[in-house]
């Protein structure tokens, strides 16, 4: 079922938490709401669930207007941050809970419960109580409980934030698989960009109650439209620039100590903008390279990180960038070295300030 949000506004008292938000999530899509805490992503999820009432706008599941429908009639599956497993009920009873609410009992329901538990690899733990499970197992039970009722949409509120790093990657795969298998429209809330990039079909980056950019993971990471998105998703050098002139698809921007060829959306000369450079896209060499534009730089600080080395480079006039080198010899430069910074115009993006 697709989700259609039109001009949605949510207020807490006098404060507008979400203002005039419109969004369409197609059927079967794994949609992620990405943003820092306090950006309104959980509020938006809870509005879709029905726990928060919209003060304006509309919310449709396909053609059905659910804006005023109470949550228990929306046929949603929800996975909570702290799992919210009922402590007095066994794993199987937890999973069967939603079926019983739909008057599904007897062998058919038991079979569904067993199937759902098998699907998450917990078929043997049905008789246990949640307290006797590990964090990852609880997470799987929560997932089985939400999915067994074949909900119209699956809603997940930072479901991985209480797990350790290794488990997080495992469960990430489980979730992705189950979602694809069931082909169920999913809204996933997270502040973790890696989660968002690895799992989603579509990402909405949220800021101050609005979706700042909507796009595929590749769009969001590779073509951030605002400096906020660029900074929040991955890390980015953000340098203030002034447009000198455009040159076909390329433009020349002045960043103080030097000018640089870049791609971008600025059109008028003298327009101010922000140059976005991903650290891992930058090259460092001892001498200027012939295959791309080079800027003279000096290594200020070196941070060895094992699989890569991060360098802070000064371009002069207090303009500094971070560059990361991977591959053999990535730690080959030292503080104080005078080097050449290579920038491919295709990875240097200028956006309006």
């Amino acid at each position, binding site marked *: 079922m697709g989700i259609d949000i039109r001009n949605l506004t949510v207020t807490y008292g006098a404060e507008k938490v979400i203002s005039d938000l419109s969004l369409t999530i197609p059927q079967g899509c794994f949609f992620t709401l990405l943003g820092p805490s306090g950006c309104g992503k959980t509020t938006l999820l809870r509005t879709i669930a029905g726990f928060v009432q919209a003060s304006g706008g509309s919310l449709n599941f396909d053609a059905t207007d659910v804006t005023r429908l109470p949550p228990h009639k929306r046929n949603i599956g929800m996975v909570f941050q702290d799992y919210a497993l009922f402590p007095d009920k066994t794993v199987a009873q937890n999973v069967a809970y939603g079926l019983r*609410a739909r008057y599904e009992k007897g062998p058919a329901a038991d079979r569904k419960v067993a199937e759902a538990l098998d699907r998450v690899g917990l078929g043997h733990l049905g008789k246990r109580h949640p307290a006797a499970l590990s964090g990852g197992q609880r997470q799987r039970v929560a997932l089985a409980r939400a999915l067994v009722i074949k909900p119209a949409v699956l809603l997940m509120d930072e479901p991985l934030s209480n797990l350790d790093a290794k488990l997080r990657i495992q469960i990430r795969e489980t979730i992705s698989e189950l979602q694809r298998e069931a082909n169920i429209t999913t809204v996933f809330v997270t502040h973790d960009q890696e989660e968002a990039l690895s799992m989603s079909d579509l990402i909405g980056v949220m800021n101050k109650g609005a979706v700042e950019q909507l796009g595929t993971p590749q769009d969001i990471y590779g073509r951030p439209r605002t400096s906020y998105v660029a900074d929040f998703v991955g890390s980015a050098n953000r340098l203030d620039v002034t447009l000198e002139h455009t040159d076909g698809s390329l433009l020349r921007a002045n960043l103080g100590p030097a000018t640089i060829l870049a791609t971008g959306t600025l059109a008028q000369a003298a327009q101010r903008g922000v140059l976005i450079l991903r650290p891992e896209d930058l090259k460092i060499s001892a001498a200027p390279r012939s295959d791309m534009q080079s800027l003279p730089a000096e290594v200020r600080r070196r941070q060895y990180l094992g699989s890569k080395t991060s360098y802070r480079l000064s371009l002069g006039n207090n303009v500094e960038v971070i560059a990361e080198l991977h591959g053999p010899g990535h730690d080959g430069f030292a503080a104080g070295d005078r080097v050449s910074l290579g920038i491919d115009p295709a990875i240097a993006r200028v956006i309006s300030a």
Partner: protein
Amino acid sequence: MSRSIRSPWFWLSAAALSLLALFVLYPLVNILTASFLGDGPSGWERFFTTAKYRDALVNTLLLASVVTVICTLIGVPLAYVTARYAFRGKALIALLPLITLVIPEVIAAQTWLMMLGNNGLITKFLREFGIRLPSFYGWFGLITSMSFIYYTYVYIGTVAAIRKFDVQLEEAAQSLGTAPSKSRIQVMVPVIMPTILASALLVFTMVVGNFAISSILAQRLPLLSVATYQAAVAEGSTNITMQSTLASVSVLIVMAVLFLNRWVVSRGRFEIVQGRGAPPQPLVGMSGALVAISAGLAVVISLLPLVTIVLGAFTQSVGPVMHWGQWTTDNLSRVFITAPGPLVNSLLYAGIATLISICFSALVSYLVVKKPNILTPWVDYISAIPLALSGTVLGVGLLASFNGGWLSLTGTSTIIVLAYIIRRMPFGMRNSQATLHNIPNSFEEASISLGVPPVATFFKVVLPVMMPAVASAAILTWTTSVAELSASILVYSGGRETLPIQVYRLIDSGLMAYASAYGVVLIAVILIPIIIATKVFRIEVLS
């Protein structure tokens, strides 16, 4: 707002608020207004011109102050040694909270009389050696018995405060060059002081409100609660001026204490800082023996009633004369066979009261904690009012409010059950609210998201999780209801005696052996559910 009015929770809150207004606020307002109404001179005029009433006020305040000081002097050192030291027999001290819970005040008073009264065991024993104790009736008996009953409240409060006091603060003081004992006084005392003061004030209000011990031991000494009771008995429920005036005086005293308590607590905000408690240090040699002996003495004296009452229950007697050493089971057979009325009544009234009180407090706590609306703060405030009313005051209020008119309850069993519910409901409320605060909202949301409507969710998800707390609140409500005397003795009518009322009447007639038998059964009725709950169902009754 329109949305909250449409929800079922709003209407439940409104219903709860109306019930509380009718059964808590209305009686209270009746008491406070009736003192100005009625025929003849106003109650306040009579209060200030009659020597007996003025004396009652002065005596009550004096008694409460003295008992509070003694309780603090016993309770605080006992708490300190228990929290900070390990010594022989320390486990016995853990029994203290249980003792106060299972021994009703009326029985404590009775057993003190049996030991130290005019015909008491100890009195007679000492008389043989020519030692004559002062009469136990009056100041001596009141102060002694109340101090040994109420010190446990100071002990319980203080021991908790010392246990959670961060020992690092003391270590910091020592690292800065203060001697250990001095740093303790400088650093720990200010932090635990608000707790000590709060529990001392609790003792003060309990002495002011106490009816059972006061009326049994005061004899000719005027005291406020006894005077209120006597005025109520003398006036009946048609002209209630004097009883209302005296009850109002109690209410005003308790209100003053509560304001003082608020002020103390608000000054003690820093107390919240929790930390690593100090591990108990072993105490050996002379000081260890001394501490063990004095702590043991306190516990033994608190336990004495239990022993005395059992002995008394099996001792032959002729009228008021006890034949110590000659055993019989006649007293007990009277309780179960000849006159089982009080036992049956107690079980019935306390059972019904516990059931209603627990359901009501679970629902109301849920509304207050999980479904707040404009009404719920009022529900919360009003349901806490009974904590500040003594049983005698409540009894007067019920008589004044439900005697005739559209809701006439006087002379029914209902009014006794009602008195139980109103007095004990706040315990259940506090218990349930604490548990509900610990149940995350996501439980309910998970259930609702799976398609279960909100009200059904409460029964299917919230209630099962609350169950252990509800069960322990039920036990607590049961034990305190069964032991209730001061309100029920005002509202009961012939044939509706409960166990404590029967014990009280028998003590009044000097029939100690019969009183002991009913007392033993009363303690059993209190103790058995506690034992079953803790041993069989593993419920934490005392938390």
